[in-house]
């Protein structure tokens, strides 16, 4: 049973990538296959999540695969966003056909990208997790310059270099922890298994564990867009094709944070949580500050979304340092962010298509020209600004509450102020897009087509999250918190 679940989770994107390689002549069919099978992956992830939400045993296959509540939660997010991106990626829209080379490239690399992220969350081996996260850089970097412009090629290079070097530092941390563990004389064949390492963590030397954590935080933090190594993110996320931006921003950042959470659980046992918590607090606040203070000066709407991602990752990082309630709030926040940000990026692709311009000032009058897209896009921005009734409002309140409870009133107030600034900036920016007179020559009117219906699903879910946390999700996240803070 476990084998079927893991296969169901991992096989669809892998097979789609293989097909894209083999069926070079028929990219449209590959696109259909990809869009039709990704829901299988989502269903497998959901099945695993339901079992763990009921307090079931982790899904284990061999030495390699192990999904507990934390992995299951993230697997649902990754496969969900990948399903949405596969359904809205190039190759399916008959009205705006894309060149077949573009379709083929997108299906190949985006499927591999989804596959590597799923491997990263489904494996119980921290070494393999690192390999998979490193592979996400490679698979996604090739897709950024899908349309060869100078800006996109430069963005891709910056991402590739900073991402690779950052992730190499994370590997240094992994090796340091492993070296320490190996010297305790344990069986080194299972030394990088998360459960083994956590159970044996009391034998690790605190000073080495702290040193390793610094490397790991800088390394995976680079991939998660945490300050000060976030500089690749705005370029890469704004230049990438929109479905890829949705995957990178919606879930890749969360996968990198997930790696930090996994390691933090081990280092906490070895060296106490005071050290890791204070590091995450500092990095988190710095990141929120960078993100929210940059919002108002942005002139491109995709860059606006990218900086908003930085802000939200900082906030989640802040939450992770605030004890069990904070971890719960951070996980809930990442859930809402995955929904809102992936939908917003996919919608921004529709705006880009309509106006042929990525600037905020170049896309006025959105409400008049594309009413459905406009309403959904505005809802996405409102959700990202933390406005009720969307889910992110609730999780932000929870994080602030956790901050107060954990005894950091000053730091929490600073974060609250930064959140207000972010909210105001987003509101001003989206106002400039929604209203005003559209330039002549822009097509007006919009049908309620399949993409519009698909993109309204995340919005409905966000409102649901904002009204109340659904009990299954509540259970799953509580179990996930227990995984890292027993």
């Amino acid at each position, binding site marked *: 049973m476990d084998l079927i679940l893991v296969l169901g989770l991992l096989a669809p994107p892998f097979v789609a990538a293989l097909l894209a390689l083999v069926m070079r002549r028929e990219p449209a069919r590959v696109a259909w296959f990809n869009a039709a099978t990704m829901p299988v992956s989502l269903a497998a992830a959901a099945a695993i999540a339901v079992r763990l939400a009921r307090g079931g045993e982790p899904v284990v296959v061999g030495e390699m695969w192990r999904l507990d509540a934390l992995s299951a939660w993230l697997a649902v997010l990754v496969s969900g966003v990948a399903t949405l991106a596969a359904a809205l990626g190039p190759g399916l829209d008959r009205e705006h056909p894309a060149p077949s080379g573009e379709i083929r490239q997108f299906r190949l690399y985006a499927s591999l990208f989804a596959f590597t992220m799923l491997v990263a969350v489904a494996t119980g*081996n921290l*070494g*393999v997790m*690192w*390999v998979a996260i*490193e*592979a996400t*850089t*490679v698979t996604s*970097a*090739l897709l950024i*310059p899908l349309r*060869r*412009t*100078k800006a996109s*090629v*430069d963005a*891709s*290079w910056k991402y*590739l*270099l900073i991402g*690779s*070097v950052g992730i*190499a*530092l994370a*590997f*240094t941390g992994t*090796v*340091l922890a*492993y*070296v*320490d563990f*190996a*010297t305790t004389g344990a069986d*080194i*064949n299972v*030394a*990088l298994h998360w459960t083994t390492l956590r159970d044996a963590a009391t034998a690790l*030397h605190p*000073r*080495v564990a702290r*040193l390793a954590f610094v490397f790991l935080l800088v390394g995976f933090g680079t991939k998660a867009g945490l300050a000060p190594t976030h500089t690749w993110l705005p370029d890469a996320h704004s230049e990438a094709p929109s479905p890829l931006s949705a995957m990178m921003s919606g879930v890749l950042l969360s996968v990198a944070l997930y790696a930090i959470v996994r390691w933090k659980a081990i280092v906490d046992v070895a060296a106490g949580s005071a050290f890791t918590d204070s590091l995450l607090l500092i990095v988190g606040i710095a990141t929120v500050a960078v993100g929210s203070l940059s919002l108002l000066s942005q002139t491109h709407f995709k860059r606006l979304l990218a900086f908003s991602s930085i802000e939200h990752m900082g906030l989640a990082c802040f939450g992770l340092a605030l004890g069990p309630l904070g971890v719960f709030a951070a996980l809930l926040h990442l859930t809402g962010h995955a929904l809102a940000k992936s939908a917003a990026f996919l919608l921004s692709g529709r705006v880009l298509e309509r106006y042929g311009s990525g600037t905020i000032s170049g896309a006025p009058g959105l409400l008049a020209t594309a009413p459905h897209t406009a309403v959904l896009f505005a809802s996405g921005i409102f959700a990202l600004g933390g406005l009720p009734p969307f889910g992110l409002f609730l999780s932000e309140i929870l994080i602030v509450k956790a901050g107060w409870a954990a005894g950091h009133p000053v730091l929490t107030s600073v974060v609250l102020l930064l959140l207000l600034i972010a909210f105001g900036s987003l509101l001003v920016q989206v106002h400039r897009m929604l209203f005003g007179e559209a330039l002549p020559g822009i097509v007006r009117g919009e049908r309620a087509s399949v993409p519009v219906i698909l993109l309204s699903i995340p919005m409905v879910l966000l409102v649901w999250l904002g009204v109340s946390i659904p009990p299954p999700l509540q259970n799953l996240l509580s179990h996930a918190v227990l995984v890292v803070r027993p």
Partner: protein
Amino acid sequence: MLLLALVVLWRRHVTAYITAFRTQSIVLAFVGATVAWYGRVPELFLVAVMVLVLKGWIVPRVLSGIETRRQGARELHPLLNTETSLLISGALAVAAYEVSRPLAEVMSLATRGGLPVALALIFVSLFIVVSRREAIAQIVGFLMLENGIALLALLGAYGVPLVVELGVFMDVLLGVLVMQAVVYHIYDTTAD
């Protein structure tokens, strides 16, 4: 190996960079084989051979390929001059010894004396990446960083588990190929 990273800091020709990296990788393979022999870890021989083939032969060839495609000056222009670079690397090496003290204290393997060297190599490679502007020099810096980590794993724990090792090799190979592709795009788009 650290000396070979320093070569990159004072030479300015790209061919010298590539030669330095190739020699460094061969030395790494040799160290791997030695550790395998004395530590009685037969798997490490396989790893050493792979290092030799991949980093000593394939990757340098890819790098030379990039270099022949590169138009413009043969010389590279680092952000800092040679003297400053060497001074900073010296400081980084001292820092590496300081940082690795807790490590050396807890280690019992005979190879622990080499750990500061590995960390110094990691730091100096990082410095190479941030202080060079040309893509090819940054790639060499990144690859030397990988070599430093491999050395750390080798000396610290006689290598990481084989499945991880293989994954790392795959990532390095793919990474270099992707970097090559992107660098070609850069040359193409700037030529227009």
